[in-house]
């Protein structure tokens, strides 16, 4: 089975006609403005319109009375509450960052694997593995923060990396498809976490429910807004860790030899093999790096946001991250912006729920629709009556057989 391109944008071929273009046009061409800017914006707008329809059509009481004006007001209030809840106050911004931090790292996890030609939906399990490793370091050590925090983060990387590496190893050695193995390892990681949280080593003394011991205050990531004493400003340095992760991914794929090999392997496995690269090693390595990034996300969730582990600390982040990576077109900068957007939806959605009684779940619908419109550019073009341009598909992965 052949592998198709994972990265939608064509290679930057220098074109002699480029020189004659006005600077701004040339700039937009260079960054592939159509695919990287216009399409995401149209996708978001389309999703918001569809979301508005869903909100309107489920307003049964008003629909019965035929109160169209009232419905429109609700939609307007809801969509105004989103940005104001997320960005209107320092607390909102803090919450946005808190939501975005693990999404960035898990999104990078998906993207690293995707650009290496692997569909890694195991970010949830890898976050569990990394988070549990980090929490163990966090509560069992008692040293200065400058030692303990990096150690916990390192434990997160190693834990998540090994958990992801198993999947890569299985794929490389036996051809076990990563979609299946990652679904299974997600469940296994969830159950292992639940079990660990009930063991004496992990469980908080005096508690019946599965909850871990608390990370010592030295071992926590420092607050991002360090000048404020307000405990509700939860944003922590995990955000900086996430940004560093994004820079690492940029370096990996744009500057390093390994990244070049991974990219080649991702877009054409046969070519990589003929060029003397080792597919088995690359698959395992790609999954190790991807898992490490997700594990780091789990670690920031533990020693940054929560301070202890619960059975659901990875939540749905692993799956939301797939949407983040797709929206960010598997590029580090794109993922950071996509994760911030999702963070805005999350933090703003909570205010929306408070003010307009519209359930937070509408955010899930919006996210799904954004993924749809990004993944099907042809559909988005059809809706907006745009002429065909640029690449057609964001991603394609190898089938079961390969």
């Amino acid at each position: 089975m052949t592998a198709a391109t994972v990265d939608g944008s064509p290679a930057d071929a220098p074109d002699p006609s480029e020189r004659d273009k006005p600077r701004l046009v040339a700039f937009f061409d260079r960054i592939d403005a159509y695919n990287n800017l216009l399409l995401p914006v149209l996708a978001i707008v389309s999703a918001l319109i569809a979301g508005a329809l869903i909100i309107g059509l489920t307003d049964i009481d008003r629909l019965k009375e035929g109160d169209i004006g009232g419905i429109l007001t609700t939609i307007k209030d809801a969509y105004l509450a989103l940005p104001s809840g997320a960005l209107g106050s320092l607390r909102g911004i803090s919450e946005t960052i808190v939501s975005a931090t693990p999404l960035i790292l898990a999104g990078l996890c998906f993207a690293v694997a995707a650009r290496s030609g692997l569909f890694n939906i195991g970010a949830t399990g890898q976050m569990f593995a990394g988070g549990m490793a980090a929490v163990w370091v966090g509560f069992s050590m008692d040293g200065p923060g400058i030692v303990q925090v990096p150690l916990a983060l390192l434990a997160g990387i190693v834990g998540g990396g090994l958990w992801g590496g198993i999947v890569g190893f299985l794929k490389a050695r036996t051809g076990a498809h990563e979609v299946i193995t990652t679904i299974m390892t997600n469940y296994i990681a969830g159950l292992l976490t639940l079990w660990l949280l009930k063991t004496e080593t992990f469980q908080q003394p005096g508690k019946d429910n599965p909850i871990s011991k608390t990370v010592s205050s030295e071992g926590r990531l420092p607050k991002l807004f360090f000048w404020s004493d307000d405990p509700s400003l939860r944003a922590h340095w995990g955000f900086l860790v996430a940004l560093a992760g994004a820079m690492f991914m940029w370096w990996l794929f744009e500057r390093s030899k390994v990244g070049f090999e991974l990219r080649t392997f991702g877009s054409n496995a046969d070519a990589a093999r003929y060029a003397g690269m080792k597919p088995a090693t690359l698959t395992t390595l790609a999954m190790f790096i991807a898992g490490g990034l997700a594990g780091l996300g789990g670690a920031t969730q533990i020693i940054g946001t929560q301070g202890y582990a619960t059975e659901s600390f990875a939540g749905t982040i692993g799956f939301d991250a797939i949407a983040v990576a797709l929206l960010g077109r598997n590029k580090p900068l794109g993922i950071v912006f996509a994760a911030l957007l999702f963070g805005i939806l999350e933090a703003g959605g909570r205010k929306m729920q408070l003010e307009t009684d519209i359930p937070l779940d509408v955010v899930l619908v919006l996210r799904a629709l954004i993924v749809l419109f990004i993944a099907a550019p042809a559909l988005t073009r059809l809706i907006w009556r745009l002429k065909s341009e640029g690449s057609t598909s964001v991603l394609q992965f190898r089938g079961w057989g390969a």
Partner: protein
Amino acid sequence: MSTSATPAPDQLPVETTATTTATPDATNPLTFEERQHARNLGIAYIVLAGISAIVLTGNGGTATFNLDGDRSFGLPAQPLAWFVAASLAVVAGVQLWRGFGKWTNVVLALSSVLIFMSFLAWAAAGREFSFIGMLASAVTFSTPLVFGACAGIMCERSGVVNIAIEGLLLNGAFTSAFVGSLASGWPGMGPKSGFWIGVVAAMITSAMFAWLLAWLAIRFKVDQVIVGFFINFFVLGLTSFLSSRVLTENPDYNDTPTLAAWNVPLLERIPVLGQILFQQTVFVYGAYVLVAVFTWFLFRSKWGLRTRAVGEHPRAADTLGVNVLRLRYRNVILAGAIAGFGGSWWTATLGRFNENITNGRGFIALAVVIVGRWHPVGALCAALLFGLFDSVADKLSLLNTGLPSEFIKMTPYLMTIVVVAGFVGRSRGPKAAGQPYESQ
């Protein structure tokens, strides 16, 4: 859809890699891969024998397994464990020395039953245990998996990867609860007929989501795994949204009768088996009928032949006049209807909808498809096995064995990985699954 039984003139010489195994020739009886599998299997037997000798001999006493009424049988835990360990060691020796040939799977199945019984005896040593109840609830738990897996097989056999089983099941559960509750309020409708209208609505809406899957995958050539994920996300979001926005405010919209068991006349009186298989709800019987009918059509009818051809080698099928895309559309939509029916099992069992009620069962159904090697009967067996682990975990948590139920629940997932990784015989999917097809 053409479903005539007579062999059609345009039958294609397509071999399904999912069901046939390589035939050994005279000079080289086993391929390298087969020898490796035989060795792995032997090692697995040794490990199981070791577990049996070291762990399962730990509990003394007799486990009493209750059958129906006042019948029961007892198994002494320790002697049984030693017996199982010894026989598994012998089996491992024979497996490594010369293999079992065509009896390999039979021996594997028997050994699994042995170690399973020994495990139960260990867990329930000195106590009583409802054996029949466990098996009956295994059958019940497996029902939605069978429907989901059949939907998955139908899609994948025709070349469309269906990750969206979860979403289709969830939509079926929501729609049947919602429409079923609405319809029971209509004039001339009782709760019972309302429920069945809900089931029909579930089949129709799930078929529509399946059509969306086919449309995006075929018309726009969006990666099928991503479309599947989109549908899962979307349905999860939409049903949760509707459930908290509409259903919580109007509890009448989320209230259907639960479906009572319907005992099959005569068959229900068979001792033991009757209680396990024939005192269930219509959904269970529906699952068995579906597997039988689907197997027959898939391997004995013109439609089935064409479906398999389209999933393995669409170009060849196209050359011989099969409309590849139309067949894919039809099969995916039909699969959606099946999954919708399967989703209404939750409504029939619980009488209401809760957010994310399917809780990942659709992904398990996907595993069932693979462990069952893309064959309806295989999927049925795999689903029963997964259901069995569910019900064992359920019952053992009552027994307080000290063995964490998490590990029992984990077993099916580990087993899936073992199967997918081909440690004990590889499971291979239809060749063209996941690839968009462009007719020339």
